[in-house]
């Protein structure tokens, strides 16, 4: 026993060392950072301990802008992407021909580089002196004027960001929902058909309850993922997100840490902790709601 004991710890050693240095220690450290007032990263000194960093972040107009952007993004993209994914998955599971092809195509965005394809979206939506761009060409068919979606009004930029975010998160949701739909026991459907139940009723009374755990799993992970949005925005609007008024909370954390406005790990820590307080609260609310509506 003594022998195996030692050997087991030896096997665990690399994982524990890496996790300790890069996960456990930083987790403790981030709280310490967030409480150290006036921390100077060059001299590694600070004035005192308190909640000043939180107060600073909460009064920083850039943070408030990032907070607003993130909330708008979350509230629009999570319901929208989940809804469309459900619609598409139901459509997918109702057909036989070409199903594999559609599934393959739908999964493509998952394996693409967010930054690289974001650049394509930027070009599709951007208005330059040479061209109004393809999005504006389509708008002009409906008689709408050219809008600069990348450097233009706030709502136009927010539209592109939401659009791209939905495009990026769809593959995962479609994949998970189609496999959930495929695993619903066929006997329920057969029984309903014998009773002559209508299609809509079958959907709301059998399909939805049966896949509700998956649906809520997707909503929860969707909320968490959308709150951490960052690279999509960078792909579309460049690294200076504050200037574009398109920063997200995670973007604010990184900007505080590094870059032109960086060098403030204390503010970054406070903002990161605030973000996770928000995410934790929302996840708890989600879980409470799901307990009422999900059938396991």
């Amino acid at each position: 026993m003594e022998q195996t004991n030692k050997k087991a710890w030896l096997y665990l050693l690399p994982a524990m060392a890496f996790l300790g240095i890069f996960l456990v220690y930083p987790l403790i450290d981030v709280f310490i950072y967030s409480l150290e007032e006036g921390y100077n990263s060059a001299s590694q000194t600070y004035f005192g301990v308190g909640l000043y960093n939180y107060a600073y972040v909460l009064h920083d107009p850039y943070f408030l802008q990032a907070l607003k952007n993130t909330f708008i993004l979350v509230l629009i993209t999570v319901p929208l992407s989940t809804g469309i994914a459900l619609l598409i998955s139901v459509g997918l599971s109702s057909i036989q021909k070409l199903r594999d092809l559609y599934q393959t195509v739908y999964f493509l965005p998952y394996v693409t580089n967010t930054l690289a394809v974001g650049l394509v979206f930027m070009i599709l939506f951007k208005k330059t002196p040479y061209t109004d761009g393809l999005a504006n060409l389509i708008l002009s068919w409906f008689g709408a004027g050219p809008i600069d979606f990348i450097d233009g009004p706030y709502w136009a930029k927010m539209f592109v960001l939401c659009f791209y975010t939905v495009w990026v998160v769809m593959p995962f949701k479609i994949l998970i929902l189609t496999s959930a739909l495929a695993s619903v026991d066929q006997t329920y459907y057969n029984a309903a058909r014998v009773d002559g139940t209508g299609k809509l009723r079958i959907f709301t009374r059998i399909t939805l309850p049966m896949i509700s755990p998956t649906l809520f799993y997707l909503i929860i992970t969707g909320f968490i993922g959308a709150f951490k949005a960052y690279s999509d925005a960078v792909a579309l609007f460049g690294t200076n997100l504050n200037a574009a008024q398109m920063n997200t909370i995670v973007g604010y954390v990184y900007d505080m840490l590094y870059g032109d406005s960086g060098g403030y790990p204390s503010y970054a820590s406070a903002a990161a902790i605030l973000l996770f307080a928000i995410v934790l609260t929302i996840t708890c609310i989600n879980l409470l709601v799901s307990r009422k509506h999900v059938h396991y």
Partner: protein
Amino acid sequence: MDYEKLERSARLRSRAVKITTYALLTLWAVMVLFPFYWMVLTSVKSYGAYNSEWIPRLYTLSPTLQNYREAFTAVPLTGYFVNTILFTLATTGIMLVVTVLAAFAFARLNFQGKDLVFTLFLSLMMIPNELVVITNFVTITNAGLRNTFAGLILPSVTSVFYIYLLKENFAQIPDELYYAAKVDGTSDLKYLLRVMIPICRPTIVTVTILKVIECWNSYVWPRLITDDQAYFLVSNGIQEIRENGFGRDNIPAMMAAVVVISLPLIVLFLVFRKKIMAGVAQGGTKG
């Protein structure tokens, strides 16, 4: 009752539903594919042709490969590529060793406090990356590892989730095999390499693929830790190209670079389609 009429209207209805379904599915497929089409199309338009199109054209009659030549010569795209491949191989390789060893200990070996340690490991899964990245940045900077491969690789070589996934898989192997091997005098390490890994190869392949995708797309950590172009990965490279790459807004050349960067993962996906989709369904995130 006119049954024939009823039957016909029912058939018409089901056909209408089918057509609507296909129309909807095709619409989304077009939405997904169009950006890919557009990037390939733009990448083969010449610089002059692209900039003279006030109204963007949906096809081109004079494709050129000039942009690809430019993408590889005007910016250090080859360097970004080599860096990303090295980074991906090293990170995935080290991660596999670390996670397999840990999973083996949890699944096969007995030691005091195993359950407690495993529970602690699982609870680590809840720690979001964004929370620890700040200190990691400071740690790596203080260790003088900025702009090195070690700095890029080390923080992402463990994953509690993959340890969990592998442990569950290892635990399904019947104990009898282990005892039989023990009777034959096989060492634990040899048993792991010769028996457990071959049996659990599907899960190991899944983990590998997921990690490769993650590495190829990683952006935030490399951006924090490198500011020397010689260590840029493709994500940072594309951002660099966008901000001060080819100059004079050479969008076709940019798109050529985007195509080159996107291609490896798309090829990988088309080859291992079933495997990747099953793997992501089992343990993917991003959504």
